[in-house]
């Protein structure tokens, strides 16, 4: 059964443009924060709000999947509200770890392109490698600082901007192609290549 997200993908690019050009015109990032620690949730929420991000904080991987509508049940949130630009998850959580959550997100067609950042208080190289190889955007050592969040926001916004430019170009090309019906639809723009080596260097621990 197709989820709302899969339907949306097939309707590229118009539907995407609509949800990007939100009525308020704001380019506010919406971050889903996942952490079982109440203290850490409060802190990350504050860090994100100060960085002008909209935050949804949940206390488990299960709840995160529920929120995203990936738990097999009907999503409680309307799809338009569900534009999540970044997922930040703690690694060590009871039940579903951040790694397991990362895998589930990357397996979903609706959210696999949403950057996922793993946070952990433990600097374990094999853990870091595993997460990056599974497609994590970054691995941040706790405690997370404001500088971490600000840097992350810049990275995500740049990627988002780049993606939007590609989509607008794609749409323009589509319109041009409408005049010559004999041509087959163009393939979507290529995703930026994943470079594991480059991503590994993105382990950040901004200690002074």
């Amino acid at each position, binding site marked *: 059964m197709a989820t709302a997200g899969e339907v949306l993908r097939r309707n590229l690019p118009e539907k995407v443009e609509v949800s990007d050009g939100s009525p308020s015109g704001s380019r506010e990032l919406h971050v889903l924060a996942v952490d079982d*620690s109440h*203290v*850490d949730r409060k802190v990350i929420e504050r860090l994100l709000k100060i960085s002008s991000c909209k935050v949804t904080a949940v206390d488990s991987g299960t709840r995160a999947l529920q929120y995203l509508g990936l738990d097999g049940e009907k999503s409680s949130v309307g799809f338009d509200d569900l534009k999540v630009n970044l997922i930040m998850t703690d690694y060590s959580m009871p039940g579903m770890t951040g790694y397991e959550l990362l895998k589930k997100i990357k397996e979903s067609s609706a959210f696999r392109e949403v950057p996922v950042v793993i946070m952990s208080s433990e600097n374990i190289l094999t853990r870091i490698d595993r997460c990056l190889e599974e497609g994590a955007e970054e691995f941040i050592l706790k405690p997370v*600082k*404001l500088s971490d969040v600000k840097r992350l926001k810049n990275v995500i916004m740049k990627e988002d901007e780049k993606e939007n430019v590609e989509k607008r170009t794609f749409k323009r090309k589509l319109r041009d192609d409408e005049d010559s019906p004999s041509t087959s639809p163009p393939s979507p723009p290529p995703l930026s290549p994943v470079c594991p080596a480059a991503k590994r260097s993105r382990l950040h621990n901004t200690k002074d």
Partner: protein
Amino acid sequence: MERNHLQRQIAVMRQSLFDQGLVDEQFVQLEELQDDANPNFVEEVATLYYRDSSRLIHNIDQALMKRPLDFHKLDSYMHQLKGSSSSIGAKKVNAECNQFREYCQIGSAEGCVRSFQQLKKEYGALKKKIEAYFQMVRQAGPDKTACSRN
């Protein structure tokens, strides 16, 4: 002036938290997240910390009474305690958590029991000082705290 005296007392108290190694840089990070709209953020985080960690400490106390000790469970509790302690910048408590975990690793029951006693001491000492500090900050009013984003 009454207010200046209070401000100075607050500054002295705050400095001693650092000088005595009770809190570290993370505490400053939290202070920097305060502003006019959120003037008591650090106190709120601290309150949350003490609420959550007291439960953890109780669980660890209970677990330490069982024989044989379940080092895996103890380590797991301590990992959580360490996590929130470091999030609030509780330097000494954090160090005691590490010590405890080392004893878990080598399976030393005596080491665990001893280091937990020490941990509770540090934990209690920090709680007392921090509560007194925030009480003073509240007394001084919403105007100027020792360190904020204003």
